[in-house]
């Protein structure tokens, strides 16, 4: 899966977590999950569960606190997929 394909899937997942005002934000890899999409730390748990389901991977809970931007989510998926599937 290419980086662009991963990003597309990540954006699809984020659609149902975006908060107030997020529709007026242009989404890029540097978009802040908390400040621009109004996603709090509790909801990161749900996003990670969705990523696990979508990509068939298992994400360690320690990753949760490091996720700040859309790019961070894509990085995490790339990295874990490589580790767990060798792709």
């Amino acid at each position, binding site marked *: 899966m290419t980086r662009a394909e991963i990003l597309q899937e990540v954006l699809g997942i984020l*659609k*149902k*977590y*975006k*908060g*107030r*005002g*997020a*529709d*007026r934000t242009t989404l890029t890899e540097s978009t802040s999950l908390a400040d621009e999409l*109004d996603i709090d730390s*509790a*909801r*990161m*748990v*749900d996003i990670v*569960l969705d990523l696990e389901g979508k990509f068939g991977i298992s994400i360690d809970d320690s990753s949760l606190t490091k996720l700040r931007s859309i790019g961070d989510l894509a990085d995490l998926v790339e990295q874990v997929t490589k580790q767990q599937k060798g792709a």
Partner: protein
Amino acid sequence: MPRVVITGLGVIAPNANSVSEFDQVLRDGKSGISFQPRMKELGMSCQVAGVPKSDPALLEATFLERTLHVANSAMVYAGLSAIECWRDAGFVYQSDVKGPVDWETGAIIGSGMAGIDTIAEHLVPMTASGQVRRLGSAMPEQYMASAPSAFVGGLLGLGGVVTTVSSACATGTEAILHAYEMIRAGHIQRVLSGSTEGASVYSWAGFDAMRVCCRVHNDSPEKSSRPMSASAAGFVPAAGAGVLMLESLDSALARGTRIYAEVLGGKINSGGQRGGGSITACNPEGAQRCIRQAVAAAGVSPDAVDYINAHLTGTIADPREINNLICALELKPESFPYINSTKSMIGHALGASGAIECIASILQLHGAYVHPSINCEDIHPQLEPIRAHIPSTCTPAAISTAMKVSFGFGDVNACILFSKWKN
């Protein structure tokens, strides 16, 4: 002490998804009770209920997609009602704009068992099957007792008291009285107050097991809720929410907003589960004291009450309730006020009933009518002396003082009086 008025209303009921719809169906005597296939599948004896009709367009226009993922039915009903009430009171809500904190408004939104669908359908099965990790982040916010008020507080940015009260079927009326007392004491200017109850077979199953729900009208749902009828056969469970904006008169006048009614006062008490009372039955002395003291607190004489929205659920307790009202008000049958049961159309919305029925009371005061009490053509023989005071059709009436009574498990009682607002 500040006078307290009502400046906004919001409702989700089995027969209406807005206050204007509710006003119309009350006048029309339209039942919102329907057959529930799920209750039949589960082998419940009662297979009818009053369930609000889901309106996807209303949900989409009111909530963000992410909000609906983390809200059970009691929270959604409370949210819809609160937002309608907020707007009705002249405030602005936009689903995609996070407004500022309103430090002068709070929320006291009660519930009987708001999170039971979350607990029964998600928390318990997933925990029991070892899937705790996959529960996600949104369980506690849906099953905590204060879920309805917390949900409303977040939607509207409320910075005053945000809490949930619970006193079984007296919850809604009690919540409104707590809001009244807080404003009277000068603690706050405005409180969104009321109650909500989710639509869940897991809530209704317990009552079905008690044999207190109607089981003889599964093929004629609209006939099943029969308060004051000789053929009443138990209550019909229901769901929904009602929210009222209680506001100090000074604040309402300063904002120049429309006023529906004034809260005159009320009383909350318990019969102590003595003198014939128990956790499921009412001590008549407690109920009568509650009504008498509510009238005194309102500063009116009993004969000034010209309309009663009774608790009347369609069980064997109906004649006892009427007797308590007659004894407490010390009125002869011929001078008894108009009386009806909103539950005849919507069933018993448990913790939400008090608030929904307070809204019905205020709509009747405001619109100068008394709604029909349906399904009591065959009136209970003990109630024959007051038959003339129970409207069978919508009756134009210039009522000016309304009383709402609610009674609940725990032998708890609540009574509130409203007066029509005259400019």
